[in-house]
């Protein structure tokens, strides 16, 4: 007997060792449950992280834009009613009023990591007879690259943007039949036409974006789109992307401008991710329930099988509390062992996923990592599940009448 362990531990461990087959089956059951939970959680976290990474690598957390033009109906105070129905106006391209001041204000907000002004609007990229509609974005490289890491997405040339330089999407370059160092016309809706040199070709990982996107220096876009000195968007990144919506509301209140968080922009995606998370939690709950019922049923049988021994221990002076703890500990030990083996199994499943779940070019679908916290949580939850599962059999064991128990 280990002198470092109390009576209850010694008895619980011996009882588990004696019923080896039962214990093994229960631990295997708990392990499979924990493995499923660990693997699914890791997979779900990785899927969500991958989606967020993809979105946020090409998107600011918050976009500030001028307030939308709104139609105001004319009212006749004499009749207290509208005298005409006003049609909603088309939205004009216009600058954020005093955007430099607003930029400074936003930069002073804690947790705002970067504010990047931009001008964007529709234009055409023209080369010879070919003309393609594009989204022209004028940017300040230094802050903008902190939001969208364009240098990392450059597949040819560099992300450097001098006065007459431009960066074009890979698909647009193919469609126009142009390459690095070649010149193309950019023609805006206002009729301004200027020639720019392709200094870099990028791949944003999205065919549509690669077909439309063109980046030029801010000043160039201001001229082309007729917003001299202006900026029609302030792109913002914050320390925690998940707080973007609440911060956007705060910014809208402080500036009186429109502030859209990426969470709001991708509302449907978020809804589906929330549904996915809820489904995963439901699966985890039912797996946990199945594990708990497995442990409980084995312990119920164990209490019946050991009723004589419980009676003897009670006759020798074991208290109800001691008997209760012996069976609670058995449940907790099974849960703990299940969590250890299950975590290892789960890690094995993840490793298999890393090996086999790959794109045709051999690259992984996405990066799947196993956070140590996941194992810790799995261990705690499984042990607690075992403890709770053992509660009912433990109580029934502690309430056994020693006389009847010994008699069998």
């Amino acid at each position, binding site marked *: 007997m280990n002198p470092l362990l109390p*009576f209850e531990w010694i008895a619980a461990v011996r009882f588990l060792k*004696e019923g080896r087959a039962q214990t093994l089956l229960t631990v295997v059951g708990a392990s499979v449950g924990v493995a499923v939970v660990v693997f699914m959680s890791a997979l779900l976290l990785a899927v969500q992280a991958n989606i967020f990474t993809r979105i946020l690598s090409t998107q600011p957390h918050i976009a500030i834009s001028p307030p939308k033009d709104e139609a105001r109906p004319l009212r006749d105070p004499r009749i207290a009613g509208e005298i005409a129905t006003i049609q909603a106006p088309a939205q004009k391209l216009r600058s954020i009023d005093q955007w430099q001041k607003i930029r400074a204000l936003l930069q002073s907000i804690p947790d705002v990591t970067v504010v990047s002004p931009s001008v964007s609007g529709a234009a055409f990229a023209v080369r010879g007879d070919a003309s393609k509609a594009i989204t022209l974005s004028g940017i300040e490289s230094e802050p903008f690259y902190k939001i969208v890491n364009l240098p990392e997405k450059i597949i040819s040339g560099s992300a450097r943007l001098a006065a007459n330089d431009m960066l074009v999407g890979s698909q647009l370059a193919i469609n126009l039949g142009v390459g690095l160092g070649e010149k193309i016309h950019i023609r805006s809706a206002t009729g301004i036409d200027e020639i720019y040199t392709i200094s870099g070709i990028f791949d944003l990982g999205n065919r549509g974006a690669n077909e439309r996107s063109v980046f030029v220096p801010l000043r160039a876009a201001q001229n082309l789109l007729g917003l001299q000195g202006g900026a029609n968007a302030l792109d913002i990144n914050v320390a925690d992307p998940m707080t973007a919506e609440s911060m956007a509301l705060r910014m809208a209140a402080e500036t009186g401008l429109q502030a859209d968080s990426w969470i709001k922009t991708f509302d449907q995606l978020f809804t589906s991710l929330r549904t996915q998370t809820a489904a995963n939690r439901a699966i985890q709950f039912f797996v946990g329930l199945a594990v708990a019922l497995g442990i409980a049923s084995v312990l119920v049988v164990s209490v019946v099988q050991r009723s*004589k021994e419980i009676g003897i221990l009670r006759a*020798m*002076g074991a208290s*109800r509390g001691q008997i209760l703890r012996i069976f609670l500990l058995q449940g907790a030990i099974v849960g703990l062992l299940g969590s250890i083996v299950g975590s290892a199994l789960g890690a094995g499943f993840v490793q298999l996923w890393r090996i086999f779940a790959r794109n045709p070019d051999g690259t992984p679908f996405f990066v799947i990592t196993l956070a140590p916290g996941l194992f810790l949580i799995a261990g705690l939850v499984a042990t607690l599940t075992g403890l709770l599962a053992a509660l009912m059999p433990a109580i029934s064991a502690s309430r056994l009448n020693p006389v009847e128990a010994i008699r069998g």
Partner: protein
Amino acid sequence: MADIPATPPVLRLEGVRRSFGIGTDVEIEILHGIDLVIEQGEFCALIGPSGSGKSTLLNIIGLLDRATAGKVFIMGADTDSLADAELTRLRSRRIGFVFQNALLIPAFTALENVMMPQLVDRGWPDEAMRRNAESLLGRVGLAARKDNLANAMSGGQQQRVAIARALAMNPALILADEPTGNLDTKSAESVLALMREVNLANRTTFLIVTHNMELARQTDRIIEVVDGRISTGTNTPLLPAVA
């Protein structure tokens, strides 16, 4: 003034009654007012036909069951007023049990089974506990089998281990329920001799429930229970009232 013994009797029962199914149509009284005194060092047999109430009486004496009416004193302590936890403690420290089938705990070795009452009482194993158990196993002639699991021993050996276990807390009273019932003649004699030896050496009181008249005749006192009453035997009268 009558003489009052310096130490209280190990066991005193006053008008003990035990009914089952109380408040129902099938209420039945098994024990009808038992008076009994057993002094320290007595070696007694409790006999009686099946269904006479022996086991019920033994359970009440062993504090495994409570009397419906009457009083049970163990070493002078009135057990009626004790809460369950106190009753359990008193049982653990004053009473040892030897059951018909030894009822050792199969998950533990002979030595660990003997250590068990002290382990239950103190909560943690220690070296003194181990030495005491080894000494007791030596005394019942099983020192060499101390590491055997309970199931790996013969019935007689298991019963010897059970006696060693009953002695672990050095109790005042050992209750033996048919201790030789499942043993062959030789083993039965050996077990009885062992109990007698302990009784003489330690002045440990024994109350042995048996159907075996041969065994009963080897005790100092036979207490016969018939239909829930003590009918014959050298039933010691209650202590004389103070004049």
